[in-house]
């Protein structure tokens, strides 16, 4: 036979709140902020969501009525379309193929972009600018991000609007139906240019290696010497990750300029890969 223990139950006093009370760390109570700055999700947030959904649906249905998804001829391995363009969001990568080997343009650089993005919250340790559009306190971060994003968008715009037959440069006013004569420019490897200046092959290859390694070494060293605060704030690991990603990002437009202005095909040629 179980023995029932009797608990004494006090009647509920309607004048008392019976709320949970907790001690928290802090210098002042936040009575001014919570909960007065909050509102009920229904209807305040849900109706905004509903309006956003309705508006975007209207826009999408309008677009679908006005302009349809393209469908070309049936797939055929025998005829290659010219130019062959990927969907617009991949045209940045396809544009990179003009300037880099496929393993760099298609695999390594996208991997760096993704890894770099993943690392962003771990290498950006500036505590300022959370929850607000803040430029003054995080200039380097904002500029760096804007540069990468801008580069990406420029490549896409070039790929969509400036590339025609044979992936040649076509201005909007050019005749897009006609083939352009192949450019008279021939691209030369950097080390070959050096041998033309009278250097031996080995020396030229050495300088090619030195240029690329030097770019990273000098790039890594300059902030270390002149902006020691930057280095100290980040610490060894974060500094090296940040600077490696930053220099690689800058290397992309540098290589593009080298090719466009100096007709340099590859900066470095090894038996295994070319950069």
């Amino acid at each position, binding site marked *: 036979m179980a023995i029932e223990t009797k608990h004494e139950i006090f009647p509920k006093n309607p004048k008392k709140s019976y709320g949970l009370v907790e001690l928290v760390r802090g210098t002042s109570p936040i009575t001014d902020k919570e909960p007065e*700055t909050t509102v009920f*999700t229904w209807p305040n*947030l849900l109706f905004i969501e509903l309006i956003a959904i309705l508006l975007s649906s209207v826009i999408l249905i309008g677009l679908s009525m006005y302009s*349809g998804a393209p469908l070309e*001829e049936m797939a055929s391995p025998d005829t290659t*379309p010219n130019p062959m363009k990927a969907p617009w969001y*991949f045209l940045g990568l396809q544009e990179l193929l003009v300037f880099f080997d496929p393993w760099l343009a298609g695999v390594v650089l996208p991997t760096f972009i993704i890894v770099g993005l993943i690392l*962003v919250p771990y290498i950006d340790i500036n505590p300022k600018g959370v929850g*607000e559009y803040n430029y003054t306190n995080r200039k380097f971060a904002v500029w760096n991000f804007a540069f990468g994003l801008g580069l990406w968008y420029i490549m896409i715009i070039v790929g969509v609007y400036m590339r025609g037959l044979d992936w040649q440069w076509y201005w909007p006013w050019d005749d897009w139906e006609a083939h352009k004569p192949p450019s008279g420019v021939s691209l030369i490897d950097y080390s070959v240019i050096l041998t033309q200046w009278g250097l031996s092959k080995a020396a030229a290859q050495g300088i090619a290696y030195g240029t690329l390694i030097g770019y990273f070494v000098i790039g890594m060293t300059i902030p270390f010497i002149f902006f020691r605060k930057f280095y100290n704030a980040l610490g060894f690991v974060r500094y090296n990750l940040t600077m490696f990603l930053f220099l690689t990002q800058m290397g992309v437009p540098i290589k593009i300029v080298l090719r466009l202005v100096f007709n340099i095909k590859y900066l470095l040629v090894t038996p295994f890969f070319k950069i």
Partner: protein
Amino acid sequence: MADFFENLKNKIVETQVWKSIFRHGYPDTDTNRALVMFTNVLLHLHPVKVRKSALRIRYTWCLGGLTFFMFILLTITGVFLMFYYVPDTRSAYQNIKDLQYAIYFGNLMRNLHRWGAHAMVFLVWLHMTRVFLTGAYKPPREFNWVVGVLLLVLTLLLSWTGYLLPWDQLALWAVTVGSKMAEASPVIGYSGPFGKEMGMRVDNDIRFMLLGGTVVGQSTLLRFYVLHCVGLPLLATLFLVVHFWRIRKDGFSGPL
């Protein structure tokens, strides 16, 4: 007359069936507004109350929510398309033609799927830009940014795998270009740096795995179909759940 409807409503609302489904009245009182968030499985990812600052359009631009809506829209229109589409190189192209010209609302579904996909890619980028500019990835939200980047990658992969399905010229050659790039991967690709040294041949490297062969053909179409309709959406759903759960747990990043 008004009394009649009032009585009818009360009769319905007080039945056992109704009460078993809805555990609260219409959310016009504070209690019911809280209960609707607690007891509705679709709404419970929201908090009961939100900060006023989180509602400012000029802070979020609704970008994350709209991206998720595109995902829903693509799932729904995609299921419609699956009723008619067979991933067979002999019929795939004709299925798309049927959708375009013969099936009621087939063209609308296809166009919505296409525009929704473009919109989703664009919205993911804009959302990421907004999160960066407002520093919303800073502690304690670092890992949710990582999940977000993975969702960006999944969005792009979903677009790429969907690209092959119409089996038109664009599809074939876009995937050919993409798989050529994969072939050039260092170490795991046949023609990439250190590929041959690692024992990669044309019939065992990453491109072969992707295509299910050495050329874009029937096995490629089936692989991409399964990835596009089942594999990647499941993965994306998993990461979306984590993404939303983290937002809920970490709180919204707006200023107090």
